[in-house]
């Protein structure tokens, strides 16, 4: 006799099974539903239904309305995104941001994951960004770093931090794994010392204190000192991630390479590092996500990045009341960048765990 499959449960039955199986489940479902409905309604009402979208009424129209005042964004988005960058040149700042985004997207695609290609992508991307922002060549008027601001400055600090920090991290990891005890111990001391300090204190030291300890000709611009500090911090954390990845590579791999007669740099570059980076990929992306969020801290040592320009956008005069909208806008920009990066990291992790099975 053939036993047919049980009839597919109806919509209602399915709903009952999933959310109202027991009294406790039902209670939890109802509470969650109530919370969600409450927040969704409040949010919808604030952000859309009672909100003011046009600038025509000016700040006065906003203050009368009960909901969000998106007109502050319409009026001030240029300050928030571009900071003090000269008004007519702001298209360059926007284009530079696009270059960074393209570069990031390209480096997320597996065919680009060889040392040379990734270096090429980042080299070209950063050069395009720098030339666009600074100008002075190709008929673009010169704009000094002190006028950079907003999203472009945030992205610049992030990109250069990674660009300097990543090779430095690999060097530190290799030095810490060195068989010579004093080299590995000294490097370990540096890494652990940096890791035990808060990032703000390092940024502060590099921005304010370091000029005392450097001869005049070495001081350079404050922006680049801060980037160096943040790169050092990034590399101390990333070095431990790379080292963890190296520990995951089987000892036999290196021994086999040695038996083949490969030299140190060949062994590192062709055998050890590629496998180590593969092991360390999820944690590396996580570290990128964290350091993107942490670029926001440079506001403390006086840079006009997106958070500071946001503060300026609502802080002066007529828009004083509209801080929630401005912060929501900035939070949304951060969210888009950080969320997509971290989703990509989660996707990679899943993909890798599948391919390893």
């Amino acid at each position, binding site marked *: 006799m053939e036993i047919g499959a049980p009839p597919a449960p109806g919509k209602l039955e399915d709903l009952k099974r999933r959310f109202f199986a027991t009294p406790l489940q039902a209670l939890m479902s109802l509470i969650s539903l109530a919370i969600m409905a409450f927040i969704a309604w409040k949010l919808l009402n604030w952000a859309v239904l009672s909100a003011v979208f046009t600038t025509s009424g000016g700040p006065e129209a906003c203050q009368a309305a009960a909901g969000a005042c998106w007109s502050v964004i319409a009026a001030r988005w240029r300050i928030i995104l571009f900071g003090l960058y000269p008004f007519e040149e702001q298209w360059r700042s926007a284009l530079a941001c696009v270059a960074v985004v393209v570069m990031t997207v390209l480096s997320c695609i597996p065919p680009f994951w060889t040392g040379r290609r990734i270096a090429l992508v980042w080299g070209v991307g950063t050069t395009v960004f720098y030339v666009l922002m600074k100008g002075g060549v190709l008929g673009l008027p010169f704009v000094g770093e002190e006028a950079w601001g907003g999203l472009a400055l945030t992205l610049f600090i992030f990109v250069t931090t990674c660009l300097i920090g990543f090779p430095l991290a690999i060097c530190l990891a290799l030095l810490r794994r060195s068989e010579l005890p004093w080299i590995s111990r000294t490097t370990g001391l540096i890494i652990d010392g940096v890791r035990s300090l808060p990032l703000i204190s390092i940024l502060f030291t590099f921005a304010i204190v370091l000029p*005392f300890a450097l001869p005049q000709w070495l001081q350079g611009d404050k922006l680049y000192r801060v980037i160096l500090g943040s790169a050092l911090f990034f590399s101390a954390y990333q070095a431990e991630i790379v080292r963890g990845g190296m520990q995951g590579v089987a000892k036999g791999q290196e021994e086999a390479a040695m038996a083949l007669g490969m030299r140190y740099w060949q062994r590192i570059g062709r055998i050890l590092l590629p496998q180590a980076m593969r092991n360390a990929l999820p944690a590396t992306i996580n570290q990128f996500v964290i350091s993107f969020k942490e670029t*926001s801290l440079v506001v403390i040592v006086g840079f006009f990045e997106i958070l500071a320009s946001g503060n300026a956008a609502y802080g002066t005069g007529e828009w004083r009341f509209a801080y929630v909208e401005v912060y929501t806008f900035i939070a949304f920009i*951060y969210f888009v960048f950080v969320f997509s990066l971290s989703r990509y990291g989660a996707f990679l992790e899943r993909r890798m765990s599948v391919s390893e099975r």
Partner: protein
Amino acid sequence: MSSLLRNQKVRNALLQVLYVGSIGALVLTGVVIARRNLAEQGITSGFDFLFKSTGWDVNFTLLPATANDPYWWFFLIGITNTLFLGTVGLILATIVGTIVGLARTSTNELAQLLGRTYVDIFRNIPLILQVFFWYALITHLPPPRAAHEAWGFLLTSRGLYVPFPNVGSVAMAMALLALVAAIALPLWLGSTSRLSQAIGQRRGIQFATAAAALACAAVILAIGRLPHAPFIDFPALQGLNLRGGLRIPPEFSALAIGIAIYGGSYIAEIVRGGFKSVGKGQMEAALSLGLSPWRVFTLVRLPLALRAMLPILANQYVWLMKATTMGIAVGFTDFFMIVALTINHSGQTLEVIGILMAGFLAINLSLAALFNRLNKAIALKGNQLRG
């Protein structure tokens, strides 16, 4: 000479000397240049400045402070402020994280969705932005005369005013200590191996110690209360200002809320990971032994999850403790802000940076030591992986 260089041992020794030497030289040169530059500005190096009075004030302190107090006292104030904010923030973040993490591991799909939305939103927005937001929100509250009032709490742009017992500060501290003992002692008694009773049969002792400690706290409060004043002091409007109660300044609440919400989203993920790592078989075994669902949770699921969580949690706590340095963004006088102010006012750059490093090293190491001890105490003993 060249034959010497070809010797592996000599080469290794030379390499090490070169590496360590060049780093040492770099640091030393920096220090020498810095001292010369500072001396040119008429700043003498050394730690004598620690005993001079500062001449400026701090806006939040647990210890008594005036502008005449010496620098070392201000550093102490900074460290206590950092630890206090850290502790409050960590406790709040743990509560938030546990609730959200449990929602994410529950069998209810709606609760899961709610938890995931929370984590996704608050994890992906920088902490300093959240702190700025809460600070702006609090300082835009109505002024004291039009304060929001609820259950004796007053919400104003000058801070949050809460009812507070009229008790001397020494008695208050002792009562707090007794309260901590009331929570910690029963927990310790419930797990220590130094008592002869079986672990499940210590209810009586646990209740007795908790009650004794609570009674102690009550007696201390009763003795320490200030005379001629009501026992609990409610904040109220008097003239143009608020009098009475305890004022929590906006800087402190902004940071505490920010750390609680942002840290909570990370702790929620740690909690979820911890619970996910507990094998289903363990819980099924416990259920089949006839334990009630609540006992399965407290005796099997929670302890096992806690063991998996603790090392990662310790890392997160150290990170959150360091995150208190964001106080400088809104003007909370934590340790780092005192350091920055001292550098501005005294010019003793190198010494103060040294103090900064030593301070954070001490905080990190003691937190790590505490968690190592805790971890050792609750780690599984012996080999549980019998076939």
